[in-house]
């Protein structure tokens, strides 16, 4: 599943984004997820929790997660938290698909 985050990801929008993602994940047959952040205009540390939370859920079901389209800002934030060590980031969706 490819999940595009559009707009701003902060604590306020996190609830909505979390619900949307979880609803899609329940429906999805394939438990792998690629987060496409190329249309995300802002992210603070709330983004870490959202990605980490989804990663933990699908991991239990044998799924994998990866990130695509990071801005310099969001890359710095994910890097600080160590998240990129468990949820790798790729340049393109193709590349992410190949490494699933």
């Amino acid at each position, binding site marked *: 599943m490819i999940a595009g985050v559009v707009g701003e990801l*902060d*604590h306020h929008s996190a609830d909505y984004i979390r619900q949307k993602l979880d609803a899609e994940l329940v429906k999805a047959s394939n438990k792998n997820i690629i987060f496409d952040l190329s249309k995300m205009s*802002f992210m603070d540390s709330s983004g870490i*929790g959202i990605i980490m939370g989804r990663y933990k859920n699908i991991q239990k079901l044998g799924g994998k997660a990866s990130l695509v389209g990071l801005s310099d800002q969001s890359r710095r934030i994910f890097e600080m938290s160590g998240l990129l060590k468990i949820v790798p980031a790729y340049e393109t969706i193709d590349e992410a698909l190949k490494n699933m």
Partner: protein
Amino acid sequence: MQPINEIKLEFLSKSSNEAFARVVAAAFVSQIDPTLEELADVKTAVSEAVTNAVIHGYENSQGLIRMHCKLFCDAVEIIISDDGVGIEDIELARQPLYTSKPDMDRSGMGFTVMESFMDIVEVTSKPGEGTTVYMFKTFKSLIK
């Protein structure tokens, strides 16, 4: 050092005001024309401090958050404060990955992000009285 501009903002501890506070800080700081990346740094730090006041300080109940900004020719000072529950152990709270609300998808990286995006971050707090976060950033692009 005299500030060239100064604002004080007071707003309710609603999560919709997290984005509002970011916009205000960005509009204020853009008067001195920093780079887009420097502007994003400020927005992110403000977002972290205001979010903390909303979810930790007031634990999602209603309260007032204050943002006091001073603009210099190549730098900004931003003080964000609340009259919420306060922090018992500031050193612990500032540690990367420490959060008192792991159940809420909080990562414990808020203070670490502030420290990384601003030059100075100082936290003062008194349990039961509130928390004040002082931040300062020099815009390298504007230093003459």
